[in-house]
């Protein structure tokens, strides 16, 4: 796996607009960004409305994922290029999700929406309508998803990478600072977790740092190459960004994303917490 297998540049996207077999997908939590202008031909996925189970706290099951992709006009053999706001957090989450369900060809656009906008590239308000398909998903690949018991068992034995900001890690704040600080769970982090904020892996324009910079970053912060890894944040989207860096860019094996993350862990009765 190399960077070119999992990442495309904004230039590449601009050169490939309208190419058959390539589907651009904007993934946001706040889809008003998409509605105000998107990459030409891109369909939208709403992180909350489209990608979360409407009742339970979980992602969509296999049949619901199949129905979603079919309705969006995405086929099994399409190359899917994901991008979005928030420095590609939700696009990285969708990337992880597409991998869970076995999509063959999926990549991120480096820098996401921010890079595209800062470059002054064109955005379209045209309604995108792709004919429906019959998408068939694989059984979920749970080798890249961690659950709570696994996280508790990993204390002191695996790399637990907390990718939230230092102030969330220390418990000074409970959520990223663009949100009201009113969460009910306890503040702090999983004991023995190392704090390597997702943002250290990205440049200010949202693009990923170079492979050399990334390798040096994790080595400096005490990442143990000989241990399996679980990444977490608050709800699992920033940790998808780091999961992407570790597994897809740096090629590390046995890296899982704990999408339950701090909202779940910080609410569990009796588990150890450090501040």
């Amino acid at each position, binding site marked *: 796996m190399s960077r070119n297998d999992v990442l495309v540049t904004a230039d590449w996207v601009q050169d490939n607009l309208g190419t058959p077999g390539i589907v651009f997908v904007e993934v946001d939590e706040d889809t008003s960004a998409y509605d105000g202008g998107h990459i030409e031909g891109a369909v939208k996925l709403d992180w909350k409305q489209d990608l979360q189970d409407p009742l339970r706290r979980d992602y969509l099951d296999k049949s619901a994922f199949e129905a979603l992709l079919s309705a969006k006009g995405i086929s099994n053999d399409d190359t899917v290029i994901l991008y979005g*706001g928030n420095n590609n957090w939700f696009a990285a989450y969708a990337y992880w999700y597409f991998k869970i369900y076995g999509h063959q060809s999926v990549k991120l656009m480096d820098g996401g929406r921010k890079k595209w906008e800062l470059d002054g590239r064109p955005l379209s308000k045209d309604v995108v309508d792709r004919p429906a398909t019959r998408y068939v998903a694989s059984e979920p690949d749970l080798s890249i998803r961690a659950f709570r018991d696994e996280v508790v068992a990993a204390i002191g034995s695996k790399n637990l990478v907390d990718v939230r900001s230092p102030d969330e890690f220390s418990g000074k704040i409970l*959520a990223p600072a*663009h*949100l009201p600080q009113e969460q009910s769970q306890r503040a702090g982090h999983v004991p023995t977790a190392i704090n390597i904020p997702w943002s250290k892996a990205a440049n200010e324009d949202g693009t990923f740092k170079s492979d050399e910079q990334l390798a040096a970053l994790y080595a400096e912060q005490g990442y143990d190459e000989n241990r399996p890894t679980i990444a977490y944040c608050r*709800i699992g989207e920033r940790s998808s960004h780091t999961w992407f860096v570790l597994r897809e860019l740096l090629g590390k094996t046995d890296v899982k994303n704990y999408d339950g993350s701090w909202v779940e862990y910080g609410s569990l009765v009796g588990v150890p917490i450090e501040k």
Partner: protein
Amino acid sequence: MCGAPKQGGSLAGIDLSTQTVIQGSVWHDGAPVAGAYVRLLDSTDEFTAEVVTTPEGEFRFFAAPGAWKVRSLAAVGKGERVVDAELGLNETTIVID
């Protein structure tokens, strides 16, 4: 949720007795800058959050009391302000030269 809620506007529904709000607007050449990226950095200069300004150039963060830096990145350039925030409302303006 981690996506930024709608920026700016009224403070209705925000409890200023418990929240440390840092808000303001981004200006360039005598006009507000819409669609600017504004990030909040902690006292060690580490990223804490990022939002996009409204059509009126407004942004808002929910932080904690202490020293923060707000940095704006837009197609027209960059600007930065240091804010010593207290509980309640803290307002600032970032000017991009």
